[in-house]
């Protein structure tokens, strides 16, 4: 023990130089992390009133709260759809771009792929909110196509609100995911293409039997990112519908927000966060073990 302490004392300048980072991390990462667990066992308004309630927050969420389980289901739907959107569209676009012959055009396309990232995310959301309004672009297009009977208040109708959220962002091109796939394509050894061509394989089956399997690491990564991202993200819903009409677009993330800032139930909100964290950790662990097998 003493030699350790002596060795540390000699190198005290090193530890001092690590202080800025660790002071920030302890204050804004470590303490909040443990606090989330600690406070989830309390009925707490964030300031003065705190009452230990043990597992009651969790029991309430899982068994008594009529909104939580449905919101979890809705989140599942959104997560699934966003994974499909992310993987399919990005893979499709990346595959097409990869087959472009001219390098200059390829570069140009890559620029256009990430160009939407130049606009702050909220503007995209606000634009779509506008598209869904009564005389917004969506309804106007429907009228133009002679389908006026389908026009509706997309965000104000409890039957269509969730669909509107799911459809938002069409054509669902994610710049980052597309770039990840493109990078994956670059990594594919061109000898494999020669081998496939010699065997006289056509493009379609070449894709499924050669390219897609080789891009499996990228696909796994994108699925993981889309999964973890869509579980936590509720900003779109907050802006477009705030969970409504009624609770037709409510998701756990948004519930956390509402319980914390509208109802001042910080402990309860932390409990929601813990439950979501459990889901995410489980998924991460499953993903790790699948990774080790392959």
């Amino acid at each position, binding site marked *: 023990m003493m030699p350790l302490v002596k060795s540390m004392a000699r190198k005290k300048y090193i530890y001092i130089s690590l202080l800025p980072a660790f002071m920030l991390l302890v204050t*804004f*990462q470590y303490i909040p992390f443990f606090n989330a667990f600690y406070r989830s066992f309390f009925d707490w308004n964030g300031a003065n009133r705190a009452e230990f309630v043990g597992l009651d927050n969790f029991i309430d969420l899982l068994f008594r709260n009529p909104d939580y389980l449905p919101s979890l289901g809705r989140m599942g739907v959104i997560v699934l759809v966003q994974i499909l959107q992310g993987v399919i569209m990005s893979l499709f676009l990346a595959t097409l771009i990869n087959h*472009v012959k001219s390098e200059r055009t390829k570069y140009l396309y890559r620029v256009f792929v990430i160009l939407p990232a130049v606009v702050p995310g909220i503007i995209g959301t606000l634009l779509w909110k506008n598209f869904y309004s009564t005389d917004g672009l969506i309804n106007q297009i429907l009228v133009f196509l002679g389908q006026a009977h389908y026009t509706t208040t997309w965000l104000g109708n409890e039957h269509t609100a969730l669909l509107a959220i799911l459809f938002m962002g069409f054509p669902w091109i994610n710049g980052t995911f597309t*770039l990840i796939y493109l990078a994956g394509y670059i990594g594919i050894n061109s000898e494999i293409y020669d081998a496939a061509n010699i065997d006289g394989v056509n493009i379609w089956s070449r894709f499924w039997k050669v390219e897609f399997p080789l891009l499996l690491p990228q696909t796994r990564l994108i699925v993981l990112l889309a999964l973890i991202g869509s579980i936590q993200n509720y900003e779109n819903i907050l802006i477009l519908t705030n969970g409504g009409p009624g609770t037709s677009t409510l998701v756990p993330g948004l519930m956390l927000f509402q319980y914390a800032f509208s109802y001042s139930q910080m402990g309860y909100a932390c409990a929601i966060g813990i439950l979501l*964290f459990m889901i*995410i950790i489980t998924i991460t662990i499953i993903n790790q073990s699948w990774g080790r097998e392959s």
Partner: protein
Amino acid sequence: MRKNRFQAWIHLIISGILFMSLLPLLFMVIQSLRAQIDYDSSLWSISSGMIGFQNYSAVLSSVYPYVFNTFTYSIATVAGVLAVSTLTAYIFARFSFPLKQLLFSSIIALMMIPGILTFIPQFLMVFRLNLLDTPWALILPGISGGLIFAVYLLRTFFEQIAMEIIEAARIDGAPEWRIIGTIVVPLSIPTLATIGVLNFLWMWNAYIWPLVTLSSSEKWTVSIGMAFLSNAYGGANEVEQYAAYTLSSIPLLILFIIAMKYFLQGINSGMLKG
């Protein structure tokens, strides 16, 4: 011959998809140049002419503060992340000391913590530190968050810098900080630029965190400002809103043009953060 037909189709489909992807933005810019009366009547008429500049000058004074604020906050955050992460990563890369592995692993472990778990406690921490409604509410947590990935990236990079170069400088009697400044940093510029772009983007896209931590409207960021404008206007004056949106996109567009390469890298590694 068949190859050319194939290429033609590919270009057509790609262009179609990209066009639909950029359609909302095109819509935004085009509508921002029209008159409200025209907008109210139909999506196409321009009978009052393209009075774009009127819209832009009308919203300029409200948009400018938001842009200025967000720019200030993001520069401060980027500076903080780069400075602290460079120092920290260098120490982990080049020195050995007791508990080194433990300390480094505890930083990396933070990558596994999803934001939603720490959101409320972080808010309450900022509250307890009396930082609510100050820029520090954005900057300090922003630096702490950006540090994690930055330290990881930089340490990996620093470890690869040939020990010989650094040893030679040490033998020449150069003080450590000199080594960092004149050798290590210049070599790391691509990685530093990527980290910079990443954190810059984060601040410009963040909405919920600034929303709950900044109550004074003069401190608001671009994202809060745009959402506020769209609510404040209600269903009126959409064309001016579009002008506001377009104006707010300009700073990032400029960054994009200057640092295109790092932008591409930054977006890529940003998502890898998980």
